[in-house]
């Protein structure tokens, strides 16, 4: 069997918290004093951007409009430049390549070209055998389709949508708590064990 590992990108390979919080800060009027840490934690507990803002005390209309702005800018290339690869991930992927693993990236993004540039900037593209970009609006079924075709030994992702995709495709799934969902949320949704980072997951599983 081919040693193939599929990876989610945002929150699994790269830390996108800084980008998410910076965009939120940039689209929020200064008079609305929001606690970005609290909003990030709400989102990691499963809330949408709108609900997280509401939970932080904003009105529904304020929350909806800020979330709309956030959505509009979150994949702009400048803001994407704030993403950084998690510590030791590059070295881990290099080691996997050395051990003849095929690495496949499956991510949900609106702008595939921006992702491609980002992978080049972050020096990750050279380590990947292939990259698949799916429509974020139908992430789970689209990722499932690719997982079914790729038939990896494992898919690693950071949220329940990744888990659903793996389940649909009949592919083993491991969750990391470094991204869009926290450990408690993923545990509550039936995932176990939850790894803190991709590196910890690879060390334990591969």
């Amino acid at each position, binding site marked *: 069997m081919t040693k193939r590992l599929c990876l989610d990108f945002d929150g699994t390979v790269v830390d996108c918290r800084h980008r998410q919080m910076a965009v939120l800060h*940039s689209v929020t009027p200064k*008079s609305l004093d929001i606690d970005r840490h609290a909003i990030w934690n709400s989102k990691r507990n499963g809330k949408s951007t709108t609900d997280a803002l509401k939970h932080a005390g904003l009105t529904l*209309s304020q929350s909806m*409009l*800020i979330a709309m*702005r956030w959505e509009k800018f979150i994949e702009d290339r400048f803001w994407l*430049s*704030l993403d950084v690869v998690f510590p030791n991930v590059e070295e881990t992927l290099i080691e996997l390549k050395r051990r003849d693993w095929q690495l496949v990236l499956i991510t949900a993004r609106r702008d595939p070209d921006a992702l491609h540039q980002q992978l080049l900037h972050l020096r990750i593209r050279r380590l990947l055998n292939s990259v698949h970009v799916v429509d974020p609006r139908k992430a789970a079924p689209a990722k499932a389709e690719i997982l079914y075709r790729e038939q990896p030994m494992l898919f690693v992702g950071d949220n329940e949508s990744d888990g659903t995709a793996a389940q649909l495709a009949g592919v083993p799934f491991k969750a990391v708590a470094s991204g869009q969902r926290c450990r408690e949320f993923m545990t509550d949704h039936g995932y176990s064990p939850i790894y803190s980072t991709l590196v910890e997951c690879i060390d334990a599983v591969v």
Partner: protein
Amino acid sequence: MTSDPNPRKRILIGAAGTGTAFAACTAIRRYWGDSVELSAMDTNPHYLVTSSLLADHYFQVKPFRSPEFVDQLLAILTDHAIDFYLPLYPQEIKLAVELKHSRRLPTATRLIGPGPEACNVASDKYFAAGWLSEHGLPSPKTCLGIPDFDATHYCIKPRMGTGSTGLRLLTKVELDAICQTGPLSTDPSDGVIIQEQCFAPELTVDVFIGQQNSQSRVLCRERLEIKSGVSTKVRITEDETITTLAIQLGTSLNYLGAFCFQVMRNEKGWCVIDVNPRPGAASATCSVTGNDFYGAMFALAFGENTEPFFQRLPRAVYVTRQYSDFLMIENDETPLLRL
């Protein structure tokens, strides 16, 4: 009540409207996210300063030449308990260095910037030429008033200018004609220097001097296209000769941190034509090659490891730049716009 073991670092960045400040703010948010409380100041209102989108606090201040500026600056540093102050405009840097050495900066505020000598080298081109020669570093033949050396082509530029602002290229005949009416002004404030004309290519050299030699890093940027003073196409390389020159320059200046300088050629080889006591706006182009001078500059100031901010460049890399669009909100009363 216990104190926070990891309090947010508070940073003030000056000249926030410049590309340099934007690159600095971007590095802060990229590598330290919300763990840094970022303040920015500029003469423009916040909605005309892109860095304000990244900053937690924004201050519109008077121009640094204004008598009110120092009081405004000191009030911000004190009232917001600023831990690190990064001035960026050359005269602002000079002012900050003077404030530090006259002990007027709050004691808790650490200046991210050059020492007084490096500041003089960066701000006074005549002083710089003499200083470079004294330290065995190559510089173009330079004089004040009337030319005291022979050359076929000369350039004159403001003694206290920045970059190539005010640069005039002249033949020997043209310069002789100008000097017939008397020596050129030598006044430190509005005088000019006369230099031999060097030839292309002009390279900007990004330098980081770390605590140890092994942590230092040097890259050369050749500007292939410039629009409105902004490098839009660059070629980035490593060069052994220039690396040696850069380390010697940084060491002679007792510099610790990031700065950049420009070199051109004369008949003897590379010579230093300008020194900037900070990275440039276009130093950010190096970050896409895995070499982030701003990130390393802040990491050094924070006492963190600077090595992750650099990697070797096995070959020349070309970087092109395009503009980004940012929506700026004029004031808090502006209704939230549907986009």
